[in-house]
């Protein structure tokens, strides 16, 4: 390890950066899809409910690697088909496909978490918002979201951790993120321990920093709430 020429520090840090970038974009995607998924699960239209259930069951159910493969090879086949030729590799950019694949999988988990968070809300307060003429969008934005955040944060924090680790799977489509860099280092120097421990430490640093963010979010979301325990 270390930053001297011939040290692996710089590579590990660069890979950490990529990991954070993939995870952050994937997480944002998952929040978006999760919100839509939860809306579908809670909808009074049975067709939307069924769609929500299908989404969460299938994407939570199949191995994530398979989803990534399908996104990557599937999308390149699709692009090749669209561009009409069978020339070279029509690459959907790896980063984008990776982020989408991760976001779609994690979104299925988020959907369940958001559903639970919404169902834990006080019915009375939602009714009050309805009674004051809020549209579903306003209701969601002004009342449901800020309160659901409170219930959703611990679960969502888990999903963030999941996404962070999941980003390691992206290496199969050619991106050198932290875990792949550790494997490269381990295989090249034949010293797996130092590389995996360094990777673990770097993951911990990310967790530590993101933990601060989550805690301040949680503190904000629980303003004015009397704690039960």
């Amino acid at each position: 390890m270390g930053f001297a020429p011939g040290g692996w520090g710089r590579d590990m840090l660069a890979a950490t950066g990529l990991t954070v970038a993939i995870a952050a974009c994937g997480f944002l995607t998952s929040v978006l899809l999760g919100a839509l998924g939860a809306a579908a699960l809670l909808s009074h239209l049975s067709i939307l409910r069924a769609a929500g259930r299908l989404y969460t069951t299938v994407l939570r159910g199949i191995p994530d690697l398979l989803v990534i493969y399908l996104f990557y090879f599937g999308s390149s086949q699709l692009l090749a088909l669209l561009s009409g030729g069978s020339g070279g590799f029509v690459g959907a950019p790896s980063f984008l496909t990776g982020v989408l694949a991760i976001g779609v999988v994690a979104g299925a988990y988020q959907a369940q978490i958001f559903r639970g968070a919404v169902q834990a809300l006080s019915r009375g307060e939602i009714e009050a918002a309805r009674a004051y003429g809020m549209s579903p969008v306003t209701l969601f934005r002004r009342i449901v979201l800020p309160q659901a955040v409170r219930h959703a944060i611990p679960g969502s924090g888990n999903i963030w951790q999941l996404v962070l680790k999941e980003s390691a799977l992206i290496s199969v489509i050619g991106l050198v993120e932290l875990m792949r860099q550790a494997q490269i280092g381990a295989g090249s120097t034949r010293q797996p321990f130092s590389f995996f421990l360094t990777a673990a430490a770097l993951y911990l640093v990310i967790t530590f920093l993101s933990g601060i963010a989550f805690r301040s979010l949680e503190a904000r979301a629980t303003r004015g709430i009397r704690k039960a325990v």
Partner: protein
Amino acid sequence: MAERIPEPVPAVALSGIRKSYGSVEVLHGVSLAAHEGEVISILGSSGSGKSTLLRCVNMLEVPNDGTVAIQGEEIRIDRRAGRPPRPSDAAQVQRLRSRAAMVFQSFNLWSHLTILENIIEAPVHVQGRDRKDCIAEGEALLERVGIAAKRNFYPAHLSGGQQQRAAIARALAMHPAIMLFDEPTSALDPELVGEVLKVMRDLAAEGRTMLVVTHEMAFARDVSTRTVFLHKGVIEEEGSSADVFARPHSERFRQFLARA
């Protein structure tokens, strides 16, 4: 006969309202019209369906049968068989709701917002009014109900009576044409009850239509123009307040008055 004289459009018109929870019907066809500027007291014993009736007016409960019209506009309800009834046109319901403010029996203040934020929430985000104006008005309202000092508190940190007053202020801030009050003075001490009833009397004088579920006989008799007595989901007695209290027709209502 009087064909040329146009009937004034009622602010709220309920007709033949039936409402069931599961297989139990709690409203058995209630009809009621409130004209502009009328104050209607809804009396009745606990569990008689008063809250349910009030909640049918703004579609928090969708009646299984019957119609609701707000200022002449009938709310369209989708009652296809095999599923619970619901409004066909969500936008219509939102529009009509923003003209009818409600004070809930259990207050239902938004727990993540301070009292002042609770009050300006709907005016700013539903009615799209200017935030600054709303704050100024909200503070004036809080002053009026005597909890200005608590404006930056969260609901969980208020006493019951303070919460109820905040809920009343929240409804007033909407400048609604129609007000639905569900026992708005239940948590207040007698002094404050007097205050709040005075506020309601002023609102009545301004010509707002009010439906008030109440246990305050004095209010029903002296302030409201009309009194309705609900019993087991049926209107047992209805008429001008003066009449009803002076000459009650229904045996049940006579009993109710006697015990009060």
